[in-house]
């Protein structure tokens, strides 16, 4: 039993090593930021995507890549202000 549990916790440990993974307390903002970053990374990794965007936006591919890279910093805009009291209340409601 304990072996299995430790196996599970090992699995969790492994998962934690990936930035994009989440847990029960992950917020919508965090989750979506990761999604956006993954998406941008994927765009840049596929040149045909970049070409498509370049045509659509009427920019050079270099500019497109540059813009995408810049977007990696805060892909979804600034993080929402955390209101600690309301958050706590929410949590209590949830459980």
């Amino acid at each position: 039993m304990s072996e299995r549990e430790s196996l599970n916790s090992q699995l969790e440990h492994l998962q934690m090593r990936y930035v994009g993974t989440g847990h029960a307390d992950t917020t919508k903002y965090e989750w979506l930021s990761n999604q956006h970053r993954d998406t941008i990374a994927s765009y840049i990794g596929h040149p045909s995507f970049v070409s498509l965007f370049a045509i659509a936006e009427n920019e050079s591919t270099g500019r497109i890549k540059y813009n995408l890279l810049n977007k990696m910093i805060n892909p979804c805009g600034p993080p929402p202000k955390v209101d600690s009291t309301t958050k706590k209340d929410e949590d209590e409601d949830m459980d």
Partner: protein
Amino acid sequence: MEVDKNQVSEWDDSELKKKPSTVSATPRRNRWDETPVSSSGATGGFKGTVADTPNNKRKSRWDETPLNVTSQTQATPMYNLGGATPKYDGSQVAMTPNYSGLVKQTPMIGGQMMLDPQQLQIQRDIEERNKPWTDEELNSLLPSDGYEILTPPAGYVPLVTPARKMALASQTPVSGFFIQDENRKQDYGIDTQGPVDGLSMKPEDKVYFEKILGSGDGEGEENLSPEEIKERRIMKLLLRIKNGTPPMRKQALRHLTDRAKEFGPSALFNQILPLFTSQSLEDQERHLLVKVIDRILYKLDDLVRPYVRKILSVIEPYLIDQNYYARIEAREIISNLSKAAGLACMTAKMRPDIDSPEEDIRNTTARAFAVVASALGIPSLMPFLKAVCKSKKSWAARHTGIKIVQQIAILMGCAILPHLKSLVEIIGHGLEDKEPKVKTITALAIAALAEAATPYGIESFDPVLKPLWYGIRLYKEKGLAAFLKAIGFIIPLMDEGHASYYTEQVMLTLINEFKTSEDEMKKIVLKVVKQCVSTNGVKPQYVREKIVPEFFKHFWVRRMALDKRNYKLLVETTMELANSVGGGEIVALIVDDLKDESEAYRKMVMEAIDKIISTLGAADIGPRLEDQLIDGILYAFQEQSDESSVMLNGFGTVVLAMGTRIKPHLTTITTCIKWRLNNKSAKVRQQAADLISHIAVVMHACGEEQLMSHLGLILYEYLGEEYPEVLGSILGALKSIVNVIGMTKMTPPIKDLLPRLTPILKNRHEKVQENCIDLVGRIADRGADFVLEREWMRICFELLDMLKAHKKGIRRAAVNTFGYIAKAIGPHDVLATLLNNLKVQDRQNRVCTTVAIAIVAETCAPYTVLPGLMNEYRIPELNVQNGVLKSLSFLFEYIGEMGKDYIYAVTPLLEDALMDRDAVHRQTACSTVKHMSLGVVGLGCEDSLVHLLNFVWPNIFETSPHVINAFLEAIEGLRVALGPTIILQYTLQGLFHPSRKVRNIYWKVFNMLYISSQSSLIPSYPKVLNEGPNTYQRYELEYII
């Protein structure tokens, strides 16, 4: 107080009743009691002692007034062993009171303790048998009529031997009470239950836990001082840890650790350390105590400082214990101790021992310091070491200091490398010390450092090279040995040029020392030769001319074979020489010794030849040498009298290496084997059979099929062998013959051989089972048509029993054989047998059966098996249904892609299983789904897999680890087959669920998905609307040109 016997037995009754008033004045003693001291005085004395130790909670009848005593005695006739029996008494005294004193006062155990537990046990036993008669026993033995009980004469003084006197003198009144209590319980040598939690304990333990014996009910706790209550509490916890069941132990250990600070170090160590020194301590108990000490050290931290010395004095001797684990655990404690107490404290406490006149103390201290160094790091100990190694006060301190360095090297291995230079520097001067012992230990320390540093760090040894080199010319005997050892370890570190130069230099001395008769020197010389010869820089030419002749002259002598370590070293060194100059040459030098008179020597020769030929091959062995070699080996093989496998292995190796060149000798070898198969000794027969399996391949390569058939017939005749070891070997030999000559050419024909094997399958011996099943499996695989179907069915039934075998190899062979048999005779009958076997209780048996079913399905195509298997699921029996599901799981695992044709067939069954109330059903069905989906990836089975996913998914909230694991694996399998998008759709619902429990597991599934298909998820993420300042939409994906 054993002397004063005022208790009265019923023998005295009448008199007492007649004149009760006189009891206190002139008490009538027990007739069997020889001790004439007046009772009133004695009782008074007792009272005194009791008053002295008011805290002793064990109240004795001696506390009462004499009158009271009388009545009590009448009520309960006493076994007054204590007083009546000098001998028994004495031993009791020797055993108990001293310990009780010791436990309280000093952690060390006195001289009496030196008896080992067995001796104590025997002594106790003898005394138990020789103990004198009690009144009660006498009453029952002697008739009451016609006998009179006489009072002892007035002037009678019992004979008191000096030993008894001593024993009496040494006992303390307090422990006297203890003895009385013991006697009341009358230990008949049966291990009675201890009072604490019903734990049993060894009689030797009782002395430690004396205080809590008989106080299990907690009587009179209120009379104790807080200190004593604490003491007893610790004792109870320790006893629970030492003798308790695992849960009890765990709890006690946690309790003890949690309250370590509260108990305080003094109370704890006063209890633990005496236990540690107990002679009767077993490995397991010692391990537990080590654990206790470890934990409390961690808790107490620097509070232990005042006790460091005490702990060390108890633990250090274990550093040189014979038991490896004892040494390891002692190291662990010292290492933790040094972490808790700190370096300053440790050095301060161990310092006095550094120049102790006792060699042993210095030795253990050096080892303890090495442990401290490994715990706290070498650099922190360096200044101290430097000072000690340079100590002017006494050579002993320098000796210990250098020994510490040696021990550090041995203990830490290559971890010394960063400090190598400074370590060599601080001991370097020791090579020129005035004291020969210091010189020797310095050389040994350098050897240890070089060994630990291999193959790096030659530059660090520069400063000591010169003195070492002068040293080997100057010194003799022991000193020289140490210096040679150091050089031997340094040479492999050098580059080629230097190595060859220094080897030549050292070789002169070394060759001189070949002659030595000293054992230690011999070992070192062998080792150094090995190290020198194996370095690159030494030319084969040089070795051949300068080293080999002398070496063989002095070392390849019979005497070397007698000592196991010499023997091993010599073989290794010779191997190294052969590496350098070539195998043929070396073999030629020793081959004649295969016919030596001494068997041990022949064995050593054989082992060397075996090693040389197995690594270097037989290519450079000429025709003449070949004849000599085979001749010698045959002689040695035939002449061997003991049971070792050296000759056998050597024979096998040589024959294999020679290959077809062995052909001319095969007839001789076979004759020898045949003759030996008939030998009276079982071991000889076994070796002969083993030899056949060794050389069968070569025999076949030589084209000697006829010879092999002949051997096959002979082996067949020997199948009635009664020794299982031999029978196993014979089966192995048969198997090797069948393997090389094939089923059709085999003699005896398979149809005769197999029926002979069937009864052997019943044999319970592992070796027989394994070889027999291998052989049967081989026949079933290759030559099944030679045998009747009925015979195969019979074997099937035998095989079912094999599934119970402990050895995995046997079970695996049995399961595979089922497959072969099913292929040969069709799956129907075999399957019926196997399905029936699903009903048995034994789990391992069922698991193996399911594997066998799956294998049968794999070999005979699933459609032959599935209908029957699925029909079996209708039996309303848990084991059977689970067995069916498990078989399906294995089946889909084995058949892989083929599974696509069977998914629709089994889906209804899996639906049912996945909805079952029983968790094991769902678990096994989940793993079936996993294997199934992994098998059919990309084969267009998505429809039914999605259907199954809908049944798998609700198990997401399962809490049992096995089930949830199976669930996760099923999802993983389905992800591969269905693509991550579908699974993601299922997952999205729960990621932001209000309940944390739901979110936990859903995120886990999501993470699983994310890690394995990160990029495939990108197009599948849901569209999220923007929110305030945050852009959540991925507009790029919506571009249309």
